């Protein structure tokens, strides 16, 4: 199965650059272009090695950085200066200026997004209830000639509210705090299961709980065990259940 993942969890080249600047404690107002370019490129390279999809914007930024780096390395010739006075004048500006402004501007909104997130969190601490069904109060004749004064978005909004209402009313007291299971613990449990079942068990039966984190941890635990040659997996046909065998190999 192929995973197409955005580069790590960066929201784009600007986000990645901000990250690199922060991580390396660089001055955003005086970006060392050579350094940041190298880091950026090595990042992109790693992604290529991992065969992750790289959005074109990342490549465009890479090109921009490389160009900027080379421009800053190039010595400015005196005669050229004379010839193209007007051009250079305009060009005189630090080529990093534009990038700096983009980064700063992007950072403002990234922070604003963070602020919104906090607000949303605070808001979610205040619970309400769905609208009481007032249909019994409606008298038929009165509502017929009334025109609907609503936009498409009101309709979508109503729909959204209904979905939320369903989520809310479905489970009463079923929200169990998520139990963190470590991969290591899960590896142990899998080995125990195999032992009590004569050394083999169906892959599907390993997923005894339906929540996602459990499934992910189980899956990673199985991968780990396979890597360690402690178990072996077999599948007779496509889409057939996979059988996990305990190998005679090294134990944990």
């Amino acid at each position, binding site marked *: 199965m192929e995973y197409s993942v955005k580069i790590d*969890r960066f929201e784009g080249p600007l986000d990645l650059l901000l990250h690199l600047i922060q991580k390396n404690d660089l001055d955003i107002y005086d970006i060392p272009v050579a350094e940041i370019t190298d880091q950026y490129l090595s990042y992109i390279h790693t992604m290529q090695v991992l065969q992750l999809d790289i959005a074109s914007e990342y490549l465009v930024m890479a090109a921009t950085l490389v160009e900027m780096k080379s421009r800053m390395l190039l010595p400015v010739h005196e005669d050229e200066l004379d010839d193209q006075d007007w051009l250079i004048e305009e060009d005189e500006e630090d080529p990093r200026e534009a990038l700096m402004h983009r980064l700063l501007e992007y950072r403002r909104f990234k922070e604003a997004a963070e602020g919104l997130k906090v607000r949303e969190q605070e808001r979610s601490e205040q619970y309400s*209830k769905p609208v009481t069904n007032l249909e019994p109060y409606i008298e038929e004749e009165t509502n017929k000639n009334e025109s*609907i004064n609503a936009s498409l978005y009101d309709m979508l909004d*109503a729909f959204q509210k209904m979905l939320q209402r369903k989520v809310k009313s479905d489970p009463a*007291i079923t929200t169990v705090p998520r139990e963190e299971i470590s991969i290591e613990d899960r590896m142990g449990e899998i080995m125990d299961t195999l032992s009590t079942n004569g050394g083999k068990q169906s892959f599907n039966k390993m997923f005894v709980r339906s929540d996602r984190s459990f499934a992910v941890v189980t899956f990673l635990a199985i991968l780990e065990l396979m890597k360690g040659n402690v178990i072996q997996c077999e599948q007779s046909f496509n889409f057939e259940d996979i059988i996990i065998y305990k190998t005679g190999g090294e134990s944990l």
Partner: protein
Amino acid sequence: MSDTHHQAVIEGLLFVSGDEGLDEKQIRDVLDIDIEEVRRHIDVLRQRFESEERGLQIVDWAGHYQLTTKPEHAEYFKRLVESPQSTTLSQAALETLAIIAYKQPIARVDVEDLRGVKSERPIRTLQAKGLIQEVGRSEGTGRAILYGTTSGFLDQFGLRSLDELPPLPDTEVDSSIENEVDLFFSQFEKVEQEHESTE
């Protein structure tokens, strides 16, 4: 925890549980107090609600409590649904309309399934307003009436065709997939780090 605090929380609990209400056990579990205490608090609250400056009351059936409005205020709720800017009326109608618009052709039972409430009235309202119409009968045994939107619906919402309907909020699914991938990678990173640290 003081009694006052518990009573305040119970008021909130009854409120969020809305039309469904709560039973004693649920309140007990949430507050971690015993049933007797729950009942005592409910009695205090009930008395307070009786004051004429309050607009709500606690009703109960066999240990199941629910907050409702007072019957003597009924005329005002009627006025509320009848008022021209009433959103409460349109909520039912809009929900129903959204379902029919996106799922057409659809039978009434299926609309009701989705909404979780009887929907005869909003369907009739929408029909009367010319926003939906019968578009056929289902294959099944009941040969239920199937509903779809009309051209009046397109007019009302400024759409050229049904294709112009904005995408349905199916983002729940999207975000859960995203979360899954995130979860996978955060776990993955953990494993990687553990590996690195042991190497």
